[in-house]
């Protein structure tokens, strides 16, 4: 067999192989709190608040003065993509009770529950950037939390959610999350989702990192695929009205500040569609494809923060945006799969993180931020491995899994990971795989209240506008635990559908003559007054990977930051 890695990497692999026996029964010390604090401060991108390359204070808009990652500031402090004078708002193509933007788990749940609440399917219009259901939701592997275990309760789940969020969560939102958890699972079960169960139907509950009870419900290691396709199939069976490849590029207002619909951009025919609606739900998901701090990402192609940008321009507050979740194990080799998730389960099953010298340098199950910082330190101090395309990484010693648990353990328990690497000629039962921290989850986002109404900084709602899912902030505080995000999109997606439906039933259809994009002109003026000169136009809809950009979306290290950092606007 030929070696799966180039020779300079194989030399390192041999060092890893040589220490495997000795590492097998190695006892790790948990890292003391002062040391992990120091590690985070030195190496984690979130702790570089005063470094302008990483963070910037917003100079315009409702959250002016708040500190956000530079890439987020770049999309917020940019000109609207739409030039209001290019759009004829008197040509209203669709008038609808409800406009839903985005079709991940949150958008799909909103559609189905608005329909359950009495809004006819033909009165719901759906805007989505790619195909129906193409989203981060489809990519999740691990599972969904809910407190239906015998030794569990909403109180215990709530405490875990708060501990995960470093006690900064919106407490009532976190309460709604946990109290509706079992109902969310029951609903998915009734739609025919296949969960991993015992013979008698009991769920096979698993432990999530940071949780104090077994509470993860899974569908093999394709949980998101299974749940998303069930929701899609139900929506399609009810004749959902979707405009695919028609992202929303701006909200419309009625002149008084209330939202009156959306402006959609048909990417295929390159024309605008004006949509007037009584209520609008934003469910556009996260921001992985902004490559915050220069990191590769696990996210889907359209995860570009669009909904948040549009909401910001009509006055929405944003919260908890100063913290970002980097997953410690994104693939780093081969180039084709850089950034893709290598599930935490590998480490739960015994794989260790090992440096170029074959040394295991950290207990494999520290919190995600600590693991990521430890890897960045190894790389930054020269103990990482660099691939032929310039991507740095650390070994994840996957052969240890079979060594500890017996032959076949990896292939049985980690089918998606086995498939991911063997496709490229790397057998993870024989060779370690190369990983690097990867941008995984947008912790913060649009501020909402318990009815999922989008709110301004003073807490008052923006009329007719709702939001749910990863695009919102508050539920998870500064950090989310694995499995709580899928729970969030079902619980709050449902809530946003119900709230928007109730609202639409009472609301009047905005007058055609009132439809306006004046808020965009106002925003441009604010940019000008703040002295911001930029060519950038947002929302960006899709990242720009053309030409050389294909290969430079990644790379972070203390000595050589942004080695391959991508400018999406280039």
């Amino acid at each position: 067999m030929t070696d799966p890695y180039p020779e300079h990497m194989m030399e390192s692999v041999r060092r890893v192989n040589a220490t495997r026996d000795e590492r097998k029964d190695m006892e790790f010390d948990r890292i003391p709190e002062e040391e992990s604090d120091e590690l985070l401060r030195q190496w984690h991108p979130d702790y570089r608040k005063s470094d302008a390359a990483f963070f910037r204070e917003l100079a315009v808009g409702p959250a002016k003065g708040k500190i956000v990652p530079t890439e987020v500031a770049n999309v917020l402090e940019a000109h609207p993509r739409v030039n209001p004078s290019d759009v004829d708002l008197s040509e209203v193509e669709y008038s609808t009770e409800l406009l839903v933007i985005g079709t991940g788990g949150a958008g799909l749940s909103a559609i189905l529950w608005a329909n359950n609440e009495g809004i006819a399917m033909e009165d719901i219009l759906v805007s989505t950037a790619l195909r129906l259901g193409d989203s981060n939701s489809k990519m999740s592997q691990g599972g969904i939390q809910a407190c239906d275990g015998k030794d569990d309760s909403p109180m215990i789940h709530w405490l875990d959610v708060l501990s995960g969020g470093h006690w900064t969560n919106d407490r009532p939102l976190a309460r709604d999350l946990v109290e509706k958890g079992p109902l969310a699972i029951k609903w998915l079960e009734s739609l025919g989702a296949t969960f991993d169960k015992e013979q008698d139907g009991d769920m096979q509950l698993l432990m999530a990192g940071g949780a104090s009870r077994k509470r993860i419900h899974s569908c093999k290691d394709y949980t998101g695929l299974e749940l998303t396709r069930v929701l899609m199939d139900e929506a399609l069976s009810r004749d959902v009205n979707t405009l695919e490849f028609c992202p929303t590029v701006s909200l419309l207002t009625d002149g008084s500040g209330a939202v009156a619909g959306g402006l959609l951009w048909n990417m295929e025919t390159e024309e605008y569609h004006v949509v007037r609606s009584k209520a609008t739900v934003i469910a556009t998901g996260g921001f992985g494809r902004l490559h915050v701090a220069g990191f590769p990402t696990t996210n889907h192609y359209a995860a570009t923060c669009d909904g948040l940008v549009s909401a910001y321009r009509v006055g929405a507050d944003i919260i908890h945006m100063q913290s970002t979740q980097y997953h410690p194990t994104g693939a780093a080799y081969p180039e084709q799969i850089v950034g893709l998730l290598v599930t935490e389960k590998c480490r739960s099953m015994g794989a260790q993180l090992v440096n170029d010298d074959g040394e295991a340098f950290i207990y494999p199950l520290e919190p995600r931020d600590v693991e990521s910082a430890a890897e960045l330190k190894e790389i930054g101090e020269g103990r990482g491995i660099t691939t032929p395309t310039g991507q740095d990484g650390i070994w994840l010693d996957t052969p240890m899994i079979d060594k500890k648990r017996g032959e076949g353990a990896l292939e049985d328990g980690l089918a998606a990971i086995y498939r991911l690497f063997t496709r490229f000629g790397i057998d993870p039962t024989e060779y370690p795989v190369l990983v690097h921290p990867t941008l995984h989850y947008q912790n913060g986002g649009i501020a909402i209240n318990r009815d999922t109404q989008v709110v301004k900084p003073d807490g008052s709602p923006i009329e007719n506008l709702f939001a749910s899912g990863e695009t919102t902030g508050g539920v998870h505080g500064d950090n989310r635990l694995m499995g709580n995000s899928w729970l969030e999109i079902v619980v709050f997606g449902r809530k946003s559908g119900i709230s928007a439906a109730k609202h639409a039933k009472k609301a009047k259809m905005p007058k055609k003559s009132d439809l306006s994009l004046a808020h965009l002109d106002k925003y441009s003026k604010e940019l000008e007054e703040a002295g911001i000169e930029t060519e950038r136009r947002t929302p960006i809809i899709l990242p720009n990977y053309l030409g050389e950009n294909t290969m430079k979306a990644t790379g972070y290290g203390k000595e050589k930051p942004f080695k391959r950092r991508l400018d999406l606007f280039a």
Partner: protein
Amino acid sequence: MSQNQEVEKKDQPESEMATIYIMGKPYEVPSELTIMQAQEYAGYRLIRGVGCRGGYCGACTTIYRKKDDYKLHIDLACQTKVEDGMYLVQLPFVPAQKPKWDLEELEATSEEVIRIFPEITRCVSCNTCTQACPQNLEPMRAIQAIRRGDLEQAADLSFDCISCGACSARCPAEITHYHVFQLVRRLYGKYIQPKAEHVAQRVGEIEEGKFDDQMDELIELPEDRIRELFLDVRAGNEFSLDQNSGEE
């Protein structure tokens, strides 16, 4: 822009280049790229034919031939490396109507599935679908399991299906496998797999308000008290608002 530093070429060995033909037109691209990245490198701004970029959504089905190889290959553009001399085109869409159904009105039997998809009885067991599947599944076996009445096996065999349509694009019996499989899995999940009673029970308890008083009190507590309660439950103790921290 100031924060955008140029690619450091010096510690990167030159990439080997490959010539690929996108719909017949030749392009020079680095040979370590996927088909998807190679198209972008060549200057195609992808709108269709891309979704997750990670092998989960089935949006990027691509057909190609290799140099000196008569065989027509079918694979995922985001998970397949380019090769020198590759001739390719993406299938942005595999046309297939999805019949609508109301699960509440169906029975979990193969007769029901065959009523909706009569064409599955025309399967000629050619196994082309299995050879086409980029997930290495066995769609033919799954179709045959349905015909035998074994919906559980069909659901299981098709579980990792990402609806890429590769099988359906090539099937001589014109079966739309992924729609068939979706129906079968939902019928299995809803009617054949037993329900989780503990879930329904907890939903009932919550709806009856069993936890309301405790939750009302809990969410108003100061942070240090909440931290104590967390440490208690983390240590495996039952939740109790009266409990003192540290007593196990």
